[in-house]
């Protein structure tokens, strides 16, 4: 009853909380809707299937090069397909054999440059429901049916880039689907391992050890380049979700605490007329829930509006595939709404505890709201701080993608710690300031209690009044001194109140600086890392195609050239089968057939030592025992898992050399057809360009969200606070304060609180940034310094200060006018 009554009559006080929840739910909902829309669609080339049979996935994947499925060997795949075909109702079961095949009409590559699955067996044509629109099926090696988009007619010959060489292919037919379709025998030679069997007709029961995907689930089988795009999008959305969740929790908690602090007398009245502490707590929680529900309703509407824009942003930074629209499906919206209510309840928990501590005496004695730091807040603040310190250490020793995620989490945890401990810092600073003034003989004691504060305020007011009427030369020092005294006395007497403004400022500035700093630190470090590794090298790549064929690699085999042949091996790890990136190297001094060199961290992770023999499953599905000959420290040039190049080629006929690295001055002239050479710096920058675009977009998005959100919260906190301090204002007015004076004092107070928040926000970003820099330095072997982007930092901090000062001056000025 009371919670509902409060929501109806005091909605102005609760607007800040409702808005905070609404913004949180809106962003969270948009994130979830975008994630839902970004779920992989069923590939066109599987459109006619009823189901896709896939092998079991690895337990752990340490590579972005694979979907994590352990391939079936050719024989096993054919046997399984035959078994599925035998199921009544199944009209066809086709092992899908896909491999790199890039048509090069006129010498220019055709199609998506990263596509490593352009070639298929002819039988796969049926899986997409494609037809041969002209000509006939290929009968012999060197023959193919090609997509009509190529513009070729049956009988034509076109050069096609395969993993071994660019070879001429005779077109026997044209299909309405995309791709190059060889005879199934030739396809099996390029792709002996099978990761998908397409089923037409009825959906059969799944044989043991086989996963059958039907309906939309078939989208799980997607080209590696698509899953990389989606992986980027997922990372971005996860970061946005994390940031939104933390910000909402901090902001809602601060807003509700302010509301409760301003209502202590009324809570005391409830206790007097018979409410138990539990009833008071439930009243506040009920209000939090209702506020959360109101915010959630607004927020879901916001989410529906925001989601398409967010998705467009993802597409723009190549973190999602374009789609027709982002439908407002109920699942994600309900989840976001529920999260909003839960976050409001979570934020209300601390406020309700404070409220339950109200005593009947609060109704007769005005103790001025939230005054000190409660023990639970202090304890959770210290604990959070320790967790943050631990995470910072973990960030420093983490590698790869994990490092950035951990840095963000560290930042989030430290931001929460700073928000929780803000009252302690404020109290400490104000106390120290007051003590210094005491020593200087200026008065104003620390630990001013409410009554003394009101009296001191009144006394100073009278002095101000006198000062205002006295000759001009006395006015300025008096005024400045009085404002400072009032602001300091307020901060010392009720640090938790000032903290309601400080906390959102910590969030806004902390995240803005952290994200901006991460982007800048990485932007400085990654190309430096690559350039250092590639110093004295020239990078040679196949233009417009996923890699260099063996023939080109042979032409580039000058002394000192490195031509790693990447593949994926499945090795037994501690958690089970583990997919790792491996490179084939033609350096008998390093590794010979039947041997493997594992970088020390990989060996440790897999639990093997030099001399052990590990069963390695190759791309063709066969398992080969490999002897671990050495476990040297990591070396970017060598690779973490090194095997013999010829052995890779034997077991992975589809493998392509991404890039060949040649010593400067040793580049053959002319280069192999279609190959381009770039210096190491240009290569490193190009390599980083996509990531840089993504991270910059991420930074912009996250900074806008956190700073905007923080601004709303700062404004909300100040507004609620101004309402709860009518009595104080009345005392000051009675003592002779003008409206301008009240506004100036309030603005100074809010600006200082926001400034402290900005400083704390800056400080908490240092550990994760330093940790990332140290991790990068360790990984790259080049010194990396944490970079703090002055642009983002000053934008977020300046924004908070301006919002704080303006809101405080306006609300106090208005409130004073209305009495």
């Amino acid at each position, binding site marked *: 009853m009371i919670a509902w009554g409060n929501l109806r009559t005091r909605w102005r006080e609760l607007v800040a909380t409702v808005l905070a929840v609404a913004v949180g739910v809106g962003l969270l909902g948009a994130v979830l809707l975008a994630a839902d829309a970004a779920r992989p669609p069923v590939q066109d080339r599987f459109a006619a299937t009823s189901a896709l049979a896939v092998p079991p996935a690895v337990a752990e994947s340490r590579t972005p090069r694979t979907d994590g499925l352990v391939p079936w060997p050719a024989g096993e795949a054919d046997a399984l397909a035959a078994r599925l075909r035998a199921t009544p109702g199944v009209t066809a079961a086709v092992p899908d054999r896909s491999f790199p095949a890039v048509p090069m009409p006129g010498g220019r590559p055709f199609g998506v440059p990263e596509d490593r699955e352009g070639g298929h067996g002819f039988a796969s044509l049926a899986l997409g429901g494609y037809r041969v629109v002209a000509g006939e099926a290929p009968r012999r090696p060197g023959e193919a049916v090609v997509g009509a988009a190529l513009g070729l007619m049956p009988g034509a010959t076109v050069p096609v880039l395969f993993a071994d060489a660019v070879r001429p292919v005779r077109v026997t037919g044209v299909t309405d689907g995309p791709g190059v379709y060889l005879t199934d025998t030739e396809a099996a030679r390029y792709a002996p391992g099978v990761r998908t069997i397409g089923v037409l007709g009825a959906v059969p029961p799944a044989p043991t050890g086989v996963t059958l995907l039907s309906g939309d689930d078939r989208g799980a089988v997607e080209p590696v380049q698509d899953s990389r795009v989606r992986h980027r999008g997922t990372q971005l959305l996860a970061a946005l979700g994390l940031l939104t969740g933390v910000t909402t929790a901090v902001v809602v908690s601060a807003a509700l605490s302010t509301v409760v602090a301003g209502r202590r007398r009324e809570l005391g009245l409830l206790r007097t007329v018979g409410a138990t502490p539990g009833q008071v707590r439930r009243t506040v929680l009920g209000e939090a829930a209702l506020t959360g529900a109101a915010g959630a309703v607004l927020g879901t509407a916001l989410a529906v509006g925001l989601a398409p824009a967010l998705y467009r942003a993802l597409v723009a930074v190549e973190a999602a595939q374009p789609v027709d629209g982002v439908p407002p499906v109920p699942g994600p919206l309900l989840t976001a709404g529920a999260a909003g209510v839960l976050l409001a309840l979570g934020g209300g928990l601390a406020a309700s505890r404070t409220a339950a501590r109200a005593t009947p005496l609060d109704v007769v004695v005005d103790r001025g709201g939230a005054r000190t730091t409660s023990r639970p807040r202090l304890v959770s603040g210290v604990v959070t701080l320790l967790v943050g310190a631990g995470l910072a250490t973990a960030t420093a020793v983490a590698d790869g993608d994990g490092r950035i995620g951990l840095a963000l989490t560290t930042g989030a945890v430290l931001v929460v710690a700073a928000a929780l401990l803000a009252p302690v810092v404020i109290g400490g600073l104000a106390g120290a300031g007051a003590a210094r003034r005491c020593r200087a003989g200026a008065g104003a004691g620390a630990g001013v*209690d409410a009554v003394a504060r009101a009296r001191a305020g009144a006394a100073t007011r009278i002095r101000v009044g006198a000062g205002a009427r006295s000759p001009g030369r006395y006015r300025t020092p008096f005024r400045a001194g009085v404002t400072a005294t009032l602001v300091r006395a307020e901060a010392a007497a009720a640090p938790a109140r000032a903290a309601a403004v400080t906390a959102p400022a910590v969030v806004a500035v902390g995240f803005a600086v952290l994200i901006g700093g991460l982007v800048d630190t990485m932007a400085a470090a990654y190309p430096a890392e690559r350039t250092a590794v590639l110093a004295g090298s020239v990078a040679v790549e196949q233009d417009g195609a996923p890699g260099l064929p063996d023939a080109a690699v042979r032409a580039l085999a000058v002394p000192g050239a490195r031509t790693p042949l990447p593949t994926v091996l499945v090795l037994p790890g501690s958690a089970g089968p583990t997919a790792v990136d491996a490179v084939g190297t033609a350096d008998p001094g390093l590794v010979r057939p039947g041997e493997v060199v594992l970088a020390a961290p990989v060996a440790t992770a897999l639990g093997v030592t030099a001399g052990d023999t590990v069963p390695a499953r190759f791309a063709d599905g066969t398992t080969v025992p490999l002897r671990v000959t050495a476990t040297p420290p990591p070396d970017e040039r060598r690779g973490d898992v090194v095997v013999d190049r010829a052995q890779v080629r034997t077991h992975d006929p589809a493998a392509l050399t991404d890039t060949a690295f040649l010593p400067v001055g040793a580049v053959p002239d002319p280069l192999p057809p279609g190959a381009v050479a770039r210096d190491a710096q240009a290569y490193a920058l190009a390599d980083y360009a996509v990531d840089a675009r993504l991270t910059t977009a991420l930074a912009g998005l996250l900074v806008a969200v956190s700073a905007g959100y923080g601004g709303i919260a700062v404004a909300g906190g100040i507004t609620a606070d101004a309402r709860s301090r009518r009595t104080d204002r009345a005392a000051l007015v009675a003592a002779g304060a003008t409206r301008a004076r009240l506004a100036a004092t309030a603005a100074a107070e809010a600006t200082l609180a926001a400034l402290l928040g900005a400083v704390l926000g800056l400080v908490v970003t240092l550990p994760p940034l330093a940790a990332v820099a140290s991790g990068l330095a360790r990984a790259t072997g080049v010194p990396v310094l944490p970079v703090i982007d002055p642009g983002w930092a000053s934008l977020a901090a300046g924004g908070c200060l301006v919002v704080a000062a303006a809101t405080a001056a306006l609300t106090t000025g208005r409130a004073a006018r209305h009495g």
Partner: protein
Amino acid sequence: MLELADLRHVHRSRGATPVRALDGVSLRLRPGTLTAVMGPSGSGKSTLLHCAAGLESPESGRVLLGGTDLGTLSERRRTLLRRERAGFVFQAFNLVASLTAAQNVALPARLARRRIDGAAVTAALAEVGLDGRAGHRPAQLSGGEQQRVAIARALVTRPDVVFADEPTGALDSASSAAVLALLRRSTGTATTILMVTHDPAAAAWADEVVVLRDGRVDDRFATQGRPGDPDTATVIGRRITAGNAGPAAVHRVPGGAR
């Protein structure tokens, strides 16, 4: 019935000198009487009321409310006892701002999870002359009307004792008279009223006046004449002033200053 036996209490706050607020106060209030507690600022009036109502725990002494010793109860049991047996009227901040007059009156019953029918609430409001204002919120009521709603709320549970702390402190004389007449009338149903006031005109409505000074009972006398009689107020005023030779000296605990 309310019985206070040898109440002693010292106010201690951080950084301030401890102040002896109650120094052996014993009082016995008969059912159906209105007792006014008077005395200069700092004499311990409010502390006495807070201790008697169980809002504050005295350092020693006993408070018996309807035969129950408050000192032996947990904070929760004390809350429940207040809910059942006591009503409160303060100088200000008596009503929950977001609730209507009727909802405010029904609040104690609702908090006790007891059903209270609309008729009882209407009757309680009618008793204080506000049956037409049931749906109004405190902000829409005058100060006197707000106090009358507070009285209706205090009386609706038929409590043993009503504690009133300067109930007319913020009202004009006409409104004050109306509020005091209501309080006085409620003693007819055997309700005991303990009222703290500094106003002799308010004390003139009481059966008995207790004067505190330095935390001790300095004077105690029954009033004469009809309730609220201005002459009685004059007599009370004179008697208080006569006893009040100088400004109240705060009784300090020897050696308490730190």
